């Protein structure tokens, strides 16, 4: 059975009316739109709906004019966007700049799917406002490969099967890339035995990697493979 066939089979099993009603079949929905465009549109549409339906409570003043023009550097390219002040960096990246590699998971700083680098440090893009990042330099998962050559962390995730559904993967990768730099710079972690002594890069064990990646959740529980990927890439040649 092809991948498309599997999707349509699941659709029929999941909805007992499928195939008997006038509802269009999955294939019909997908006929003139490729899957990636469809998914991007869905994510963007949901996020946009969240913003426009946030109606002020009865009796509160009308929303003020809250749009600001912000200039950011994203993956080395200068971007000027006009955003509502309450727009998160995550929503600005996905919906206005069109970089949908960064994912919206919990939107509450609890899952790590939205991890990007700001001025070289890993942060959660759902927990900061785009207006607060005026002038910042941002790197997303789209910005770490060199042309067609994957970043060595990306390659390690492929080699070690560090994902199943892939939704958390861009966050896991951005976190892992930063983790290696932090360890090289001598950052200790909660897994470090003695924080008073200098942290040496050779101490970056699997236990250290697990602790340092604990802010990135994976619902498929690919943790062993993710830890393998990062531990191997940390100590290769």
């Amino acid at each position, binding site marked *: 059975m092809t991948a498309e066939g599997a999707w349509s089979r699941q659709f029929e099993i999941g909805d007992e009316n499928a195939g008997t009603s006038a509802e269009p079949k999955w294939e019909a929905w997908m006929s003139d739109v490729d899957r990636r465009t469809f998914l991007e549109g869905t994510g963007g549409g949901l996020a946009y709906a969240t913003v426009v339906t946030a109606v002020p409570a009865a009796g509160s003043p009308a929303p003020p004019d809250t749009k600001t023009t912000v200039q950011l550097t994203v993956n080395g390219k200068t971007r000027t966007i006009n955003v509502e002040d309450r727009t998160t960096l995550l929503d600005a990246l996905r919906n206005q700049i069109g970089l949908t590699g960064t994912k919206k998971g919990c*939107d509450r*700083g609890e899952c790590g799917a939205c991890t990007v680098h700001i001025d070289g440090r*890993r942060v959660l893009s759902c927990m900061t406002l785009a207006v*607060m990042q005026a002038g910042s330099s941002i790197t997303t998962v789209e910005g770490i490969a060199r042309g067609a050559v994957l970043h060595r962390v990306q390659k390690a995730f492929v080699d070690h099967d560090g994902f199943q559904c892939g939704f958390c993967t861009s966050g896991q990768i951005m976190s892992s890339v930063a983790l290696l730099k932090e360890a090289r710079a001598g950052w200790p972690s909660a897994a470090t035995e003695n924080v008073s002594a200098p942290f040496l890069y050779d101490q970056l064990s699997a236990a250290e990697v697990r602790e340092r990646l604990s802010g990135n959740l994976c619902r498929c529980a690919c943790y062993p493979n993710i830890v393998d990927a990062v531990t191997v890439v940390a100590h290769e040649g």
Partner: protein
Amino acid sequence: MHPFTFSTAKDLDATAAVHARDSGVMLIAGGTDLMGLMKDHVVKPTHLLDINHLPGLNLIEPTSDGGLRIGALARMSDVAIDIGVRQRAPMISEALLCSASTQLRNMASMGGNLMQRTRCAYFRDVDGTPCNKRSLGSGCSARHGINRNHAIFGWSDACIATHPSDVAVALSALDCTVRVHSPQGVRTVPIDDFYRLPGTTPDKDNNLGRGDVIIGLEIPFRREAGRSHYLKVRDRQSYEFALVSVASGLDLSGRTIRSARLAMGGVAHKPWRLIAAEQALAGVSLDDPTRLREAIGRSFTDARPLEQNVFKAELAQRAILRALQTVGERA
């Protein structure tokens, strides 16, 4: 999120003045707590003032007397990795390293860490459940609700929430003072007076008022700081708030405790100092677990566990013993 206007603060005096004048104004630094509260409609500021660009507030420096000075805008990760902090007060670094995740620590400021709100699920659930901290007078859903994670010390019928900060517990053990800028000038507040118990006004987490801006932390030299450990006990090993946590520091004469500093997290509306236990520990050998346990127990005579968290009193005492023995192993 509720709509709001936004501006960037340029200097402290203007920040304090604007904050004093308009109760709709909230200050934002890292935003790692405030953003979630705004998204959940727990707080609805009409104006956000971004204080991240206020000059001079991100310092981390050793003081000549052996203590530390930390600016309010220093990020949690910068404080955690600072070698001066790691050597002078390892419990501060350890408390930070077991808070949140690296991504959040890279964003969150030290001042904001002190200001974070409780993780009581009822406080963050605005779909109609009563909460006196969110809406004073509405009642406490946790008092006879799901209260496994709640306080065992100092709670009132109005509120049984705990304060979620880890580093505030370590700072409390070390008699840290908080420097506060206001339109009336600068004052220093001992951290024990900065926080408050819920009483009948749990809507107030601390004793700051309008126009008060935290500018930094001063940690005086204490011999116990250099030989210290922060132990956090939680439902999962990482990236979770504490069930109970212990900040412990010892001044030793051989294996005998000359003086001890102890504070706990996850047990009260504020970092909970264990003064009675500290006093009873003086003169006790680290190799005498019976006397150690007895001394620790002195601070639990006033523990009042709730329906679902009876386990916390025993867990806390065992955690303290473990923390003291860990410090002893490092001696």
